[in-house]
């Protein structure tokens, strides 16, 4: 639908813009066909209205033949053809109903100007049509520019958003609180453990910041990072947190986006293990299956625990980064059951060529 029709105000504006044309027609009729004002107007107005409608229809071919892309000859030819057709139609209509409009105003017989000055009106019609087409192109190009601007802005916001999420994944405040608390507790009568934990925490933060700053890392690093995180969490969960890693050697060197695994493992702890009265085991499995690498993070969960939104957002973030890193070739699958949760990542296995 022509955008003009999208809003009533626009339509009125459009029609208003045709008033000068009505004026032109009136002048023509008065000058060339020697009409009086009233007679001229009574014919010019409906004719202008008809042309306004025809001009509106010009939007469709204008949109179908976008300017820079279409060959100039095709463009000119098509629009000229359309102009001829439209103008002929216009003149034909004029011939048909001019008598009816004119007889309703005055008694005297007026010669039908569309009969007598066909060529003139035809030419005028063609020119006006081409003018309408040009205006449509102008409008389309303005719209394109504003759309492009909006898209660019959206992309910027998207990128900034992802950046922030990545930063947050690197240094989760809640995690820091918990760790400090655990260290604080150990310092009193388990100073050696406290020290070890400080070191682990430092290690984790350093690797995490490093990973975040690089564009990619290998799976082995990612697993180490996730394990370092889990080591820290083990201090506060004690025997309630068990970890099992099942890693095929072939998987270690695969390049992946940084901080892929750690958010998944963190989810497993925060939304899974922490709600289970007796805790449970988080399992990391990685094996090659044909052309793909299967990476699974699974954990038990309490069916009655409240489902939190945070989990969904974290997964969304990982999914988006996977998409962008592997260009749609990777997949993230979520397999929830009432008592367990599994996230499976399917990554394309590098086949020898540099990725």
């Amino acid at each position, binding site marked *: 639908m022509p955008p003009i029709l999208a809003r009533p105000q626009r339509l009125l504006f459009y029609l208003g813009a045709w008033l000068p044309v009505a004026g032109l027609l009136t002048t023509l009729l008065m000058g060339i066909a020697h009409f009086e004002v009233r007679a001229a107007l009574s014919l010019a107005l409906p004719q202008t209205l008809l042309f306004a409608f025809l001009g509106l229809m010009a939007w469709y071919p204008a949109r179908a033949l976008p300017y820079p892309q279409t060959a100039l000859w095709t463009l000119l030819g098509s629009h000229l053809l359309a102009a001829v057709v439209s103008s002929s139609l216009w003149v034909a209509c004029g011939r048909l109903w001019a008598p009816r409009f004119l007889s309703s105003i005055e008694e005297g017989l007026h010669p039908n100007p569309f009969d007598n000055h066909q060529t003139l009106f035809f030419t005028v019609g063609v020119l006006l049509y081409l003018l309408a087409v040009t205006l449509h192109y102008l409008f389309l190009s303005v719209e394109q520019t504003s759309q492009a601007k909006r898209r660019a802005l959206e992309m910027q916001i998207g990128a900034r958003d992802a950046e922030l999420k990545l930063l947050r994944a690197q240094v989760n405040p809640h995690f820091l609180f918990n760790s400090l608390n*655990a260290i604080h*507790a150990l310092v*009193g009568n388990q100073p050696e453990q406290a020290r070890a934990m400080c070191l682990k925490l430092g290690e984790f933060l350093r690797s995490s910041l490093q990973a975040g700053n690089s564009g990619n890392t290998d799976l082995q690093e990612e697993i180490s990072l996730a394990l370092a995180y889990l080591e820290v969490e083990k201090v*506060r*969960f004690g025997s309630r947190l068990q970890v099992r890693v099942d890693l095929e050697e072939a998987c270690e060197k695969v390049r992946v986006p940084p901080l892929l695994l750690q958010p998944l493992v963190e989810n497993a702890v925060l939304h899974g293990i922490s*709600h289970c009265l007796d805790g449970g085991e988080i399992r990391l499995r990685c094996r090659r299956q044909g052309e793909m690498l299967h990476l699974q993070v699974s954990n038990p969960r309490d069916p009655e625990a409240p489902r939190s939104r945070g989990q969904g957002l974290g997964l969304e973030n990982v999914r988006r980064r996977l998409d962008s890193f592997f260009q749609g070739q990777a997949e993230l699958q979520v397999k929830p059951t009432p008592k367990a949760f599994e996230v499976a990542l399917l990554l394309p296995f590098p086949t020898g060529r540099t990725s």
Partner: protein
Amino acid sequence: MRVILVDDEAPARTILREYLQGEKEIRIVAECENGFEAVKAVAEHRPDLLFLDVQMPKLNGFEVLELLDPQPAVVFTTAYDQYALKAFEVHAIDYLLKPFSRERFQEALRKVQEKGSPVTKRTSARDLLETARVPDSFLDRILVKAGSSIHVLPVDRLDYLEAKDDYVAIHAEGEVHLKKETLGALAKQLNPRRFVRIHRSYILHLDCLAEVQLYAKDSRLVILVDGTKLPVSRSGYARLKELL
């Protein structure tokens, strides 16, 4: 003073134990890892003071407090939780934000020793829970104590609730559970689009509604899917109509 420590994290309990070592008048009678153990231990040992962690699996600190009758003095401990903190501020409850220093701990202890925890005196656990609730969320389960065991009733399984003096009789899947609570307090926390106050003494779970009948000139009753009939007041009927 007899004290029970409740926290799911061992390091947190260790700290409390350490800090309490110097206190001569204080004796730790039990340590609990979760809310269920805590309720049992309080019934068994009748402590004077409870150090209660808020963030625990399955049963959080507020829910535990709600189930304790009578309630001992309580000092809450919490890692950062903006909603819990809000509840504490609003009800002027003393709490310990982890990690906390020995000085801070002693300050809280003195307050309790001198005048007893404000929780038992001024605020009910239900009010605390209400304030601590994440805004725009409703109760998704009701906790009922029966002897030494605790029933967790997901609201989906409720049929209807009936007021009975100081208690509310909760009818769920053919069973009845009594909870020391007012019907109005529960009504406020249940999703009004699914749980309708059809009468001064009844709240109906909409899913269990079979039909509404007119049985006298201006009186109506609802019939549940299991055949039970409950009276409906005029205002109750208005509420019901709005939702149907």
